[in-house]
């Protein structure tokens, strides 16, 4: 356990399944503080399940997960989900979405402090979407709403940032803006990003985790041609394990 305190994320012999169907088999990997980990793999491979386990939304059936030496959920972790998972008709503004990540600071009377509102506005400004603060979240475009979610993740200055396919519904411009924000966080924040855009994240990440039921940790330079074309090298995974 002493060793895992120095790691940002320490996953060891993790097994998980939904009902009788096994999803993750014996997954082991570590992420150092400030490292950028890219998670790739085919649909149904268990990428999003792994993120949910890291967040504490699911509990492992076997094995252990340690986030900065503690079991999830850990307050230092922030999460950027896919925008498609939200109800677009919900009456909530972009500022209120960001303020949601300050709920730990709510007073007994259920009110946000003025400094929390200032921090939320600053996070929106950092993400370049302050002008949309009073817009309804559901009326924003995919790229803008994604940046609002990034502002929400950044507002609490997290030490670990988990992103679940953040560019799945964004255009090229929004995608490059997102990676600009991530670039500024590199080194100071541990970043774990699930993505299908292997060729885009390859120059940014320090480690790649290829997940298809089980996990294969790779150096970005190791990613073969198959991976760079968006294919997952399942035979190689089997062989190397």
């Amino acid at each position, binding site marked *: 356990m002493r060793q895992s305190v120095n790691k940002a994320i320490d996953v060891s012999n993790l097994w998980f399944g939904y009902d009788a169907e096994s999803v993750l088999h014996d997954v082991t990997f570590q992420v150092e503080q400030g490292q950028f980990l890219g998670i790739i793999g085919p649909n149904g491979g268990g990428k999003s399940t792994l993120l949910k386990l890291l967040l504490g939304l699911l509990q492992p059936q076997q094995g252990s997960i340690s986030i900065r030496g503690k079991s999830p959920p850990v307050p230092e972790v922030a*999460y950027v989900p896919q925008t498609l998972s939200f109800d677009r008709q919900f009456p909530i503004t972009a500022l209120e979405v960001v303020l949601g990540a300050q709920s*730990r600071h*709510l007073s007994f009377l259920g009110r*946000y402090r003025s400094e929390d509102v200032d921090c939320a506005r600053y996070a929106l400004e950092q993400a370049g979407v302050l002008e949309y603060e009073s817009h309804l979240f559901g009326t924003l475009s995919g790229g803008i709403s994604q940046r609002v979610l990034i502002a929400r993740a950044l507002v609490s200055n997290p030490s670990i940032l988990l992103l679940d396919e953040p560019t799945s519904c964004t255009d090229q411009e929004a995608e490059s803006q997102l990676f600009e924000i991530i670039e500024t966080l590199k080194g100071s924040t541990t970043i774990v990003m699930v993505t299908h855009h292997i060729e885009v994240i390859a120059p940014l990440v320090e480690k790649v985790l290829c997940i298809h039921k089980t996990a294969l940790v790779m150096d970005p330079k190791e990613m073969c041609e198959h991976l760079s074309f968006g294919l997952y090298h399942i035979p190689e995974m089997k062989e190397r394990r």
Partner: protein
Amino acid sequence: MISFFTENPLFLSALLVGLLVSILGGSIGPFVVVKRIAFVSGSIAHSVLAGIGLFIYLERAVGIPMPPPIYGALLAAIVSALCISRAKRFFKEREDSIIAAVWAAGMAIGIILLSKTPGYTSEISSILIGNLLWVSPQDCLLLSLLTLMSLIFIVLRFQKLKLVLFDPDEAFLQGIAIHKLYEQLLILVAISVVALIQVVGIVLVMTMLTLPPLLSGLFCRKLSVMIGASIIFSMICTLSGLSSAYVLNFPIGASITLCAIVFYGVGRCIRWILTNRLICT
């Protein structure tokens, strides 16, 4: 116009109870609408027949002294709300199927118990279609207490409730007990359903929990503002429904419901005109 309320003490108390229930229903309704759980409220509303039937049966057929049937309704509503929430959470059942099962089970138990109770027919119609004129001072006191408690809960928990309904995963990461809070919301829905049954009856409860919030949602961007507007619209619907019921000699519950539908239709037209004008300019 207002004179008949002041001249007739029965109508005046009906007006007061109606406005009180409008505050409760108007404040809970927006949560029901934004979380899309209107049919949960319908299921709870119909299942209260079991509690009402049980209390009437135990008193009339078995001879056990029982509190007024509204307490039976409250008990059944809360049990139903917990059943719906826990069956989904622990047994991973499909929510729509649980809603249908609770709806049918409550009605079936209520019908059987009431059919075994002598002289129940006069009360069943007021339960099904509601009658504000039948509300006793004790009922009125209970409704006042429930409304006050619900409002305090909403004010203190508003931000957390909003987060749980919009993004439960983020709420969980913020350390909020999401299942507990959602269950508390369902209990509030159950309480407001019981209150609204006094006004519009079991059959029409869903309209009063959904139409005023829908109408306010046409013009409000924030949930907090939507709640305020929904309370005002609920009061207007109750007031106009009571007036039209008096003038046209209609059943009160149905008149209030029809007024709510008409106001929603007018609101939708206004919204359509405003949107088109904005697009054209």
